[in-house]
């Protein structure tokens, strides 16, 4: 009831909304505290402003007129206005710390998702070899994220959950929350129309345009909040909150591995989009942070070490697992290792996809 009321006040898509959707157990507590602090602040502010402008107008005098009073101090008054605000401050501190401690105390038996942050994308690890950039959760279930970074500091931020935590390289940070509002599923017709339109244009899925995922779920935004370089503002993904565990399991199953009927190339194409390759490697020949995949396979490649290497299955496999070993000339050694994150079948699929993009492949 309460979350629903909040979401009425703050519809995400409206220009005038003050808060994003309130979709976790913390969000109502944080919003409550926010409103209390704003309320107290507003009372003080109004007092200050009335005095400020009131005095400025009331005691405005012609040049040279003497002030009515030259009282220079009043100790009881000064002590009062030091002590009374302090009491409010202590209250804010205590409530703030209390809710914060709740945010840091993970309930036993939470649903766990691993998070890998990299320049500039996210990989969520659902266990048993299932990785996907989108974060999928179950409503009313406490969820713990164990987070690590491949390169620089990132910060995982879901405004609808009022939850944020930096992802610091060299250590695991964790956060937890309990979603309280499931995201809707759009109708099959809308989904089919959007999928068809995307396929025809050949572009990547446009989350902003459709406001639902390629599987037809509406979503909450997930941002990177710590500046991390060139495409910091594109380091976004989405959070889908499922209504039932069956629905969530079915979604995870769908992305767990290549089905028997799917070809290596088409699965490789999906992995290209899903595992963050598209952030750095183009398939149309344009240079990005990393070399393009167009016509890469079978070509000769100059390395920063001065050597030249043929781009074949061995080189590609090595570059996926140990990306800093052989750096292509003109590029920085910034690619994170995918060791342990891609199965052999996944790597074979990627290579098959790269072959399909290359005129040099035999």
């Amino acid at each position, binding site marked *: 009831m309460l979350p629903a009321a909040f979401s009425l006040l703050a519809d995400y898509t*409206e220009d005038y909304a003050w808060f994003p959707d309130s979709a976790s157990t913390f969000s109502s507590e944080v919003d409550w505290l926010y409103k209390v602090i704003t309320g107290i602040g507003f009372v003080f502010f109004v007092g200050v402003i009335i005095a400020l402008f009131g005095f400025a107008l009331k005691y405005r005098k012609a040049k040279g007129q003497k002030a*009515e009073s030259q009282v220079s101090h009043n100790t009881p008054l000064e002590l009062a206005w030091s002590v009374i605000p302090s009491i409010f401050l202590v209250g804010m501190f205590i409530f703030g710390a209390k809710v914060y401690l709740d*945010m840091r105390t993970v309930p036993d038996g939470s649903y766990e998702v691993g998070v890998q942050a990299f320049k500039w994308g996210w990989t969520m690890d659902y266990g048993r070899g299932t990785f996907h950039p989108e974060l999928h959760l179950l409503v009313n279930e406490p969820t713990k994220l164990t987070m690590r970074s491949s390169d620089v500091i990132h910060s995982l931020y879901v405004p609808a959950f009022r939850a944020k935590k930096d992802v610091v390289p*060299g250590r695991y940070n964790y956060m937890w929350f309990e979603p309280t509002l499931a995201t809707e599923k759009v109708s099959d017709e809308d989904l089919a129309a959007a999928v068809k339109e995307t396929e025809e244009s050949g572009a990547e899925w446009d989350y902003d345009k459709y406001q639902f995922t390629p599987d037809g779920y509406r979503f909450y935004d997930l941002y990177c909040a710590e500046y*991390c370089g060139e495409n910091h503002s594109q380091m976004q993904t989405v959070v889908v909150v499922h209504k039932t565990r069956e629905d969530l399991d079915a979604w995870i199953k769908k992305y767990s591995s290549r089905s028997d009927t799917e070809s290596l190339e088409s699965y490789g194409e999906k992995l290209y989009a899903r595992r963050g390759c598209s952030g750095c490697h183009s398939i149309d020949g344009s240079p990005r942070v990393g070399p393009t995949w167009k016509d890469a396979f079978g070509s000769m490649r100059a390395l920063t070490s001065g050597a030249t290497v043929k781009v074949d299955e061995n080189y590609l496999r090595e570059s996926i697992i140990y990306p800093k070993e052989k750096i292509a000339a003109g590029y920085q050694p910034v690619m994170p290792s995918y060791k342990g994150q891609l199965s052999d079948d996944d790597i074979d699929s990627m290579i098959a996809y790269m072959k399909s993009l290359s005129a040099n492949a035999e």
Partner: protein
Amino acid sequence: MSAGLNIPGATVRDPGFPTERENYLTNSKGVLSWMFTLDHKRIGVMYLIGVTLSFALGGLLAFALRWHLLDPDGTLFTNNIYNQVFTLHGAIMVFLFIIPSIPAALGNFLVPIMLGAKDVAFPRLNLSSFYLWIFGAIFFVMALCASGLDTGWTFYTPYSTTTDTSVIMATLGAFILGFSSIFTGLNFIVTINTMRPPGMTWFRMPLFLWATYATSIIQVLATPVLGITLLLLIAERTMHIGIFDPEYNGDPVTYQHFFWFYSHPAVYIMILPAFGIISEIISVHSHKHIFGYRFIAYSSIAIALLGFLVWGHHMFTAGMSDMTTIIFSALTFTVSVPSAIKVFNWLATMYKGSISLTTPMCYAISFIFLFTIGGLTGLHLGTLATDQHLHDTYFVVAHFHYVMVGGTLVAFLGGLFHWWPKMFGKLYNENGGRISAFLVFLGFNLTFLPQFILGSRGMPRRYATYDPEFATLHTASTHGALILGIGLLVALVVLLMSLVRGKRASANPWGGATLEWNCTSPPPFYNFERPPVVGDPYDFHDIEWDEQNERYVTIEPERKMVPETEPAEAPAHAADKQ
């Protein structure tokens, strides 16, 4: 001297106008006489020109950023260029404008005069700190512009140890600028400790001096930490010594601790002198004794000391231990008490005063309005639970702009208008000045109020592009920036026009009681013709408006010489001795 006032039993003291050759601007001529000057006033004026140029550069970059953000798809800049522009904007504004503006420009000019001294304690050190600043500023801007920097002004590791932009050049520039800051602080501490004339006790010092003193303590104690941190960063980048970079077993959060141990106190380097200026303006333009002098003076020192204990609130989401986080939250709240005290004191000073709504007073009122918003929104960020949501969003951007721009910049402008007649001996157009204050106030609020909402709705900061639902508020913000820019231009024009065709300023155009109003405008080379009479800096009893000459003068009761007469009888105890 002053024919207008004729008060029986009193003499009228008014230094009048300076003669052609006795003021600091004209007593020697030529570029070299400025370049090699040891006069604190000329050094102050040179700093003023320097920081104004820096501010213009930083301001143009700010406007370019806002212009870019009109269009969420970012057609003006690529992501890469946007990142460099916001880094440039932040670095220039922080290191070249906000930190040196009040202490180095206004402070250099005013500290010795308000103290009643001839100059600062170490005039040569003062000149060298100016040249260090010039050298550092040129080097810094060249490094930033020539080879680019995209780390943000905070140089967070490990991004700064891995990016291929010129981190080393830029940090060296900041390192040099740090020395300039330390020298200035050192000079003020020694000046205030040793050069007070007879009668100038600590509690007869104007509050601007208390604020400058507190600021100087921070500059001397905190800046070296920044220097060491930047050197460590350079060592990390070149030699991979493994302090900050996890790839070599370092910890990136260590860098944040080091960095904010300087940079949080640096926030008070920015705002404390502003408090000092506002205390002066409010009291002088209300013609009323400052209320709670000692509370204001002590609160400056309290802020300077507490400011060293709260740096951790920049890392509430970084993954510090929960206990550390909670302790830092508690400490953060303590620093808001002395700030609140000051606001209440200023209001109490205005109460039953005789308020003139001059340009400086308009800026001071605007300061109190903006700083109150800046301070109160700090409570949302000091409170742990709400900070988790608001951290690194536009809410923070709005908050610190309210404190640093609404606070420091507006106070700087107020101070500039307040002391401009003293500095250059010219009166400016009051209406023009008031219009500038109004436009700055309006433009500033229109720019940054929408950003509080943006942040509450979850718009992260430092984003080159953004989701469509944030577009309306960004557009409003950019329009505000345009008005703000126009207001600042008006202020510049008003001040420059005064130099060309302003009326000559009397010694005391506002009726202030601090010592700088006792010398001519502009001041003579050695500040005072004869040692000034030191009294309560906020006692306005003997300051009168001279209607006929349109200026404030100081009235002193006539001291009648008692005729020497022989005592009729020798005192009784004298007789005993015989």
